[in-house]
């Protein structure tokens, strides 16, 4: 088994998991799926510099061979950006859940928040209790 095979198959498995999870009907698996896709794509971009063992791109006295530093720099940026994206998406899904009372994203779970608060319409996963007042 070669390192190349391990990395290629890992990218494939991570992508497949990402695709399957983003196609779920709730926000949380979708966030997990996006995280998987970030892993897969970051590793893929990193691999575009080809795989090299024990040759970090750092100057040294006797360093003659080194790996390609550019994909690493790009992937470092990509990791941080995917972090920002994941953080944003998870907070967005939290707020959506609080606002709508459901975390469905399959279009089936449209709940009219106004109607629900007024005591009409179907109850959501996180029902509003009418005996509690929201803080101003």
């Amino acid at each position, binding site marked *: 088994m070669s390192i190349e095979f391990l990395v290629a198959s890992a990218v494939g498995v991570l992508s497949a998991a990402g*695709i399957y999870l*983003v*196609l779920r009907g709730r926000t949380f698996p*979708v966030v997990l799926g996006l995280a998987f896709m970030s892993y897969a794509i970051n*590793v893929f971009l990193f691999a575009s510099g080809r795989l090299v063992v024990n040759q970090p791109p750092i100057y040294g006295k006797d360093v003659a061979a080194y790996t390609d530093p550019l994909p690493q720099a790009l992937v470092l940026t990509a990791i941080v950006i995917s972090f920002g994206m994941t953080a944003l998406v998870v907070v967005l899904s939290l707020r959506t859940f609080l606002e709508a009372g459901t975390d469905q994203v399959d279009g089936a779970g449209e709940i009219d928040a106004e109607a629900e*608060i007024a005591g009409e319409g179907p109850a959501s996963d996180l029902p509003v209790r009418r005996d509690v007042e929201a*803080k101003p």
Partner: protein
Amino acid sequence: MTLAWIALLPFLGALAPALTIRLGRNACALATGLVTASALALLLSLAPQVMAGEVVSTRVAWFPTLGLNLNFFLDALGLMFAGMILGIGLLVIIYARFYLAKSDPMGRFFAFLLLFQGAMVGIVLSDNILLLLIFWELTSLSSFLLIGYWRHLPEGRQGARMALTITGMGGLSLIGGLLILGQIAGSYDLSVILQSGAAIQASPMYLPALLLILGGCFTKSAQFPFHFWLPHAMAAPTPVSAYLHSATMVKAGVFLLARLWPALSGTEAWFYLVGGVGLVTMVFAAVVALFKDDLKGLLAYSTISHLGMLTFLFGLGTPAAAVAGIFHIINHATFKAALFMNAGIVDHEAGTRDLRKLGGLVTLMPIAATLAVLAGAAMAGIPPLNGFISKEMMLEEAVHSSAFGLPWLIPALVMVGILFSAAYAFRYVVGVYFGPKRESYPAKPHDAPFGMWAPSALLVILAVAIGLAPALVAGPLVNAVAAAVTGGAAGEKHLALWHGFNVPLAMSLAAILGGAILLALHRPAARIWSAIGLPEAKTLFDGTVAAGAGGARDATEGLHNGSLQRYLATILGAAILAAVTGFLSAPYVEGLRPTLAAPGAAIIGWALLIGGTAAVVLGHRQRYLALIFISVIGSIVSLGFVYLSAPDLALTQISVEVVTILLLLLALNLMPKTTPVESSPARRTRDGVLATLGGLGMAGATWALLRREGPPSISEFHWANSYSGGGGTNVVNVILVDFRGFDTFGEIIVLGIAALIIFALLETADRGASGQRLASWEPDQRRSPEHHPMMLVVATRLLLPLASVVGLYIFLRGHNEPGGGFIAGLVVSIALLMQYMASGYAWSNRRLPADHHALIGFGVTVAAVTGLTAMALGAPFLKSAYEYVSIPLIGDVGLSSALAFDIGVAFTVVGAVMLALHHLSGVARRAEKAAPSEYAMDVDPSRTSAPAPTPKPGEGA
């Protein structure tokens, strides 16, 4: 540079009225007038050179790679138009000062007017057609603001929208046409294009280019069938109509016809399209104008008719016709602007513009009447006024033209046109000023103040002077312009009032006579006209717009049913399909690059990663469990980075991993802990197939990539220059802070913005439905009896200084060894987060009351200042300078300006992470509703009072 200033002055000057309006209306008008007057003075200073046949030009490279440059040039055609735009602009400013009511915001009016003026001047001075397009679109936008100036009037708003829709669509068409034209000529410079006439007309793309360009010209110049926006634009204040719809905006289309005349004219397509549309517009609009009862409506259709005549003249394609067109542009601008101002005066002083309520004003408003008689006579083409001469020249060309092999067709149609022109001009003058005096008018009519009639008087004097001595007053300019337009083909033409007894004179006389008869017969003729009942263009337009909007809504609602799954499946399916198609289009060749043998540890790591992934996918319904498994994957990925010579990536990945998991945990606290089974087996099968295909594709692509040598990489350069140029031995870090520092700068801004959005989403979470849900939220998990376990608290407090030192160390070594601002920022953030988790929010926040917004702002500012300092010193943005200094105990440290940049990065990261987690925990505290624990450690030996009571499990307090 003078040229560029002429175009830019009105734009910059647009600020003047906005500022000076606080000093009063006179100061505002004066400031505006001064701006225009200075631009006009600059223009006139260049006039002697241009009249001598010289072409003045200014060239400034802007986007040379796109062919978009700030190239301006001034020839006689540009001089004539710029002179008209600025000269009539000045008169309109004076007029508007007296026209606008006290309640009208004058500063805004003049600011819009100057913006429009700048855009118009820009069009006529541009040497670059891409630049011309920009100014062209600016006229559409600024005229939208001017037409809709009285925003309280629905007609104004509708008229502005309609004008923008029609001229905007024409602008799009023009973009296409001019781009094709530039492609054919091989340059976007007008001076080149005008020399390439033969090549352009021989090109197979000539006809598409012509059609698209004419689409722009005809919409702007209100040619049939795009004419209907102009009458609706009359809802604008009259100074706007006088300016935009007599002298400037609608002439932009005619200007472009004249400008491109050498390159495009002379073909059969040009003759029939331009000449035909112009002729039809001229006749049709003249007939409609006669039956308009609104003064401005009459003038609007008269303008359309005259624009048609100009288009017709340029469409004939002969140099003599072009000369007539050029001459008539000047003449029309003088008498039509005067008449628009006159209509405004009547409206202002008599209180109505309706011809059916007017009449007999000659004794009440003698000055206005005199001016109207003269301007009206010029419009009707009565000698010895300027309108007569250019009309004679037009007739001379028309009687010698033949279309479809019918020599009488064009003269006959032109005859109808001038007949009705004379009739509606008579109707304006007679209908307003003559006939019986009415018993009452909506207002008490009297002559307008001097400032209001003087501008139109000046124009009328010009009209009379040109009529009496055309060769003296207008001759040199017309001849210079004709030479510029036709490239000298027109020759010197002597303008004269009297050409002897000939066919055109006979036609003129017949038209004047017939016009008078038509006026006498107006009442029965109007009855017939209303019986015919032409379709109302506005209804058609509104119907089209409504149908378009409805269609768009139906399509959107049909495709957008709210299911993210459907969209993503479509996108992913399409991507997979595209990839498979690409893959099958060529035979697959196995790569030859040698592979590396995998040691046992790598295989174990791989197995863990596959196992972890399988566990997440299979167990994703148990959300906490899925989070634990996904952290395994992040760890393996960072270990992989370590093994594959990417220490920086490994450090970043592992610290990002920790922060992400913390964030997901905090969010999950308030969300459902499980995912119910909802998808049908068929849906899950479909998703499984998509996932398998996508995964196979990604694996195959990675494999194929890794088995081939890459193309030569630019990394050679980075490796060679990292130490000597960037002063660092860690090439990845030098790329991040120097070579590609701009990327990193953009990235920290993105991170900051993401944090601010998170802030905005969570800060408002306690309002509305979300707030009610938070208020009634109840914990759905068992709570730990220990809030702040002693072990954890002590450990984190001991770790904080250590972690901070590690962070600082990672930060300082970053330039030479793995590390840097990102990782340091994340490490410090994690150390701080641990305090919040262990000792509680209140305790930690009291000790570190940092403003996270300020941290982000500080970080981005430091990074920007570093970059700009490099620029100020003449180096590229973020180019680093460095110096090695020796610090006792630590050794040689590279003090590089990149260090300052990295400080910015680190601060932004800390600020962004802390802001996100701070607000997430804030929402959680609101939901928990429990008072924060009084003590930061459940069991604190140093505390003298009794230990905090231990809450029972499940109480949630």
